[in-house]
């Protein structure tokens, strides 16, 4: 397949996954802001901007963190390259470029999301509540993902779509967890308190994993269990280990289809093996934030290697 086509497919998936994460982040923020805290809601919203890597851009445009502005910035703002609208717009543009590599149903799903988004943008903001926007974004992402799963041919294009999904999702899970780090607990005695647990539980909700978590771990919600769930539990669909398994699986499929080993395979296998060998105690010892930061860098390095090998068109 043309390298450029593969690159566009990969980025369609990344943008759609990112759009979904932005919607999930907004949900985390909205729920956290409902909880009374020593600082009011500002810290929580601010932590969200920090975690999504959009704090700088936001500060330049709006200065102080206000819920309304943050919503606009994370959902609609074309100046924010990670906003839901920017991501869907770019996914649609990429899809338009590689329409020949998409089924009619996938194109229709992406294009319809884009057309509906245009209509939402024209709707007065006071008639759109955040919950509705979040639901809308998640639903579009699900429809697109579902169309891909049920109609796309299982060829290399499918592998590149999935590589995009898994890599972006691993990055996003890591960032979502990092929100917790940025929520500065006012005093050390809050650790393990009702408020601390509420924030962790909110994270689970944001990953649509609240019930799944209870199935896997029983009643009590603790930081340790959640970290285990979202990083090391292969049953959790958004865990880092599940994402890395997915990346490895699709790289292996490419190896078989193309009949040659690749460097991305080596890098990805190493990353997956490291995760396999880790325990949650070791992660906490290293420091959750430190671990997540390291993971995000390693995943970025892997995506760079994938680009050089398959997507840049320079392979000989």
């Amino acid at each position, binding site marked *: 397949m043309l390298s450029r086509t593969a690159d566009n497919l990969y980025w369609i998936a990344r943008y759609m996954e990112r759009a979904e994460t932005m919607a999930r982040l907004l949900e985390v923020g909205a729920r956290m802001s409902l909880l009374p805290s020593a600082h009011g809601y500002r810290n929580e919203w601010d932590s969200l901007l920090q975690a999504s890597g959009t704090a700088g851009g936001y500060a330049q445009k709006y200065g102080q963190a206000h819920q309304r502005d943050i919503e606009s910035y994370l959902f609609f703002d074309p100046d924010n390259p990670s906003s839901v609208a920017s991501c869907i717009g770019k996914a649609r543009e990429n899809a338009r470029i590689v329409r020949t590599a998409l089924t009619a149903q996938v194109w229709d799903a992406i294009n319809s999301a884009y057309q509906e988004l245009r209509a939402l943008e024209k709707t007065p903001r006071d008639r759109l509540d955040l919950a509705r926007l979040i639901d809308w974004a998640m639903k579009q992402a699900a429809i697109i993902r579902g169309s891909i799963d049920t109609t796309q041919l299982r060829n290399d294009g499918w592998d590149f779509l999935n590589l995009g999904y898994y890599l972006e999702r691993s990055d996003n899970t890591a960032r979502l967890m990092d929100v917790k780090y940025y929520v500065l607990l006012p005093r050390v005695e809050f650790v393990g308190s009702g408020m601390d647990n509420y924030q962790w539980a909110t994270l689970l909700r944001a990953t649509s994993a609240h019930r799944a978590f209870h199935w896997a771990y029983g009643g009590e919600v603790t930081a340790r269990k959640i970290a285990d769930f979202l990083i090391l539990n292969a049953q959790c669909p958004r865990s880092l280990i599940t994402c890395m398994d997915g990346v490895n699986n699709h790289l292996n499929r*490419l190896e078989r289809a193309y009949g040659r080993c690749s460097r991305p395979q080596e890098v990805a296998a190493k990353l997956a093996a490291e995760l396999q060998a880790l325990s949650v105690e070791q992660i906490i010892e290293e420091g959750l934030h430190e671990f997540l930061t390291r993971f995000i860098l390693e995943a970025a390095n892997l995506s760079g290697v994938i680009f050089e090998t*398959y997507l840049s068109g320079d392979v000989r």
Partner: protein
Amino acid sequence: MYEKGRVRPPYRQLEDWTRAMPAELREMKQAEAEALFRRIGITFAVYGEGGDPDRLIPFDMFPRVFTAREWARLEKGIKQRARALNAFLVDVYGRGEIVRAGRVPGRLVYRNAAYEKAVVGFVPPKGVYSHVVGIDLVRTGPEEFFVLEDNCRTPSGVSYMLENREIMMRMFPELFRENRIEPVDSYPEKLRRTLASVAPTKCAGDPTVVLLTPGHFNSAYYEHSFLADLMGVELVEGADLFVEGEFVYMRTTEGPKRVDVIYRRIDDAFIDPLCFRPDSMLGVPGLMDVYRSGGVSICSAPGAGVADDKAVYTYVPEMIRFYLGEEPLLNNVPTWQCGREDDLKHVLSNLPELVVKEVHGSGGYGMLVGPKCTTEEIEAFRARIEADPGNYIAQPTLALSTSPTFVNEGIAPRHVDLRPYCLVGERIELVPGGLTRVALTEGSLVVNSSQGGGVKDTWVLAE
């Protein structure tokens, strides 16, 4: 539709259909059609018109109909013309016999901006320069068709021919059950076969065909991706291709893959920055050398444009006689060339009755439609002609036929033209149909989409 006050036979069933359709249903169907176009993402602009890439062209649901007999005659005439145009191209890049014989003036050929010195002496595979010839026709009477223009480079709009049909079949299946309408959907397969049939001499085995597009910012991008999709070939941009040694390759996830035939939808000037415009980012450096040494075929061939400008057009009947020894089956519109003294005199004294066009103009721009213009407009245009007579041609406003068209008040006649697409490779063929463009503004003669034109489905009825 009407002839001597009576409905022409091919339209009889349609007349009943129209009569039976209440206005609300028609409006609903119209909205449905537009929603379909938008949803599929069909956007289109005729070659060189530019404009908003996401613009929809108005779609008229009333089809245009040809009988099998009418079509058979048109088909013959179109193929004849396409053969002559290709013979002319091979000749003017070779011995130039038509010029030597004094049948076509040399300056029109050799000083033509579209004459490509880079291919002089080169005969492309199967002797074909123009592989898709789009011939614009108008009808002036029951048996009378005139050719308005030939398009030998990269005529666009064929996606509309195919999509209009899709949408009509989806919305009005009963019409297709009741009428025996020839299908057009073999076009992409025929195009692919045509392209494969002109593979270069160095190609062994199954040729790899690609469609080269300027990219997704181009107004015809939809058409490019649509055609590539239906042909099952890669849609590439210049940066996806590179030249190494004697061949052209595309960049794939598995490494370089050789390309044999390029159906290019970019202009000559952008094909190869080493040969033409050095600032072009759209083309492939070194492509022309590979082309001339038989490593790749370019369709249509660079330089094909010399056969389709409005001044050369006047000599096409002459080409048919010269190369084929036949009489033209389709007539040219009588045309005056302002570059000739006698013609110029005639044109200047009859401006209010004439249509005057720029030789290299397209898209309904830079033209004067005499009967529709004010005295001031005519005088302003007169000055332009006098300043550069060689740049203009003039034609009479023909009594163009109209086709029934849905308008706010119901059905009304509107002027139409027709562009069938003739494929030239090892064989020469065309599907029974074409793109009918319609001037939606009452009385207007201009069917270009940039001037308020729309499109409609074109039917050829089976015997």
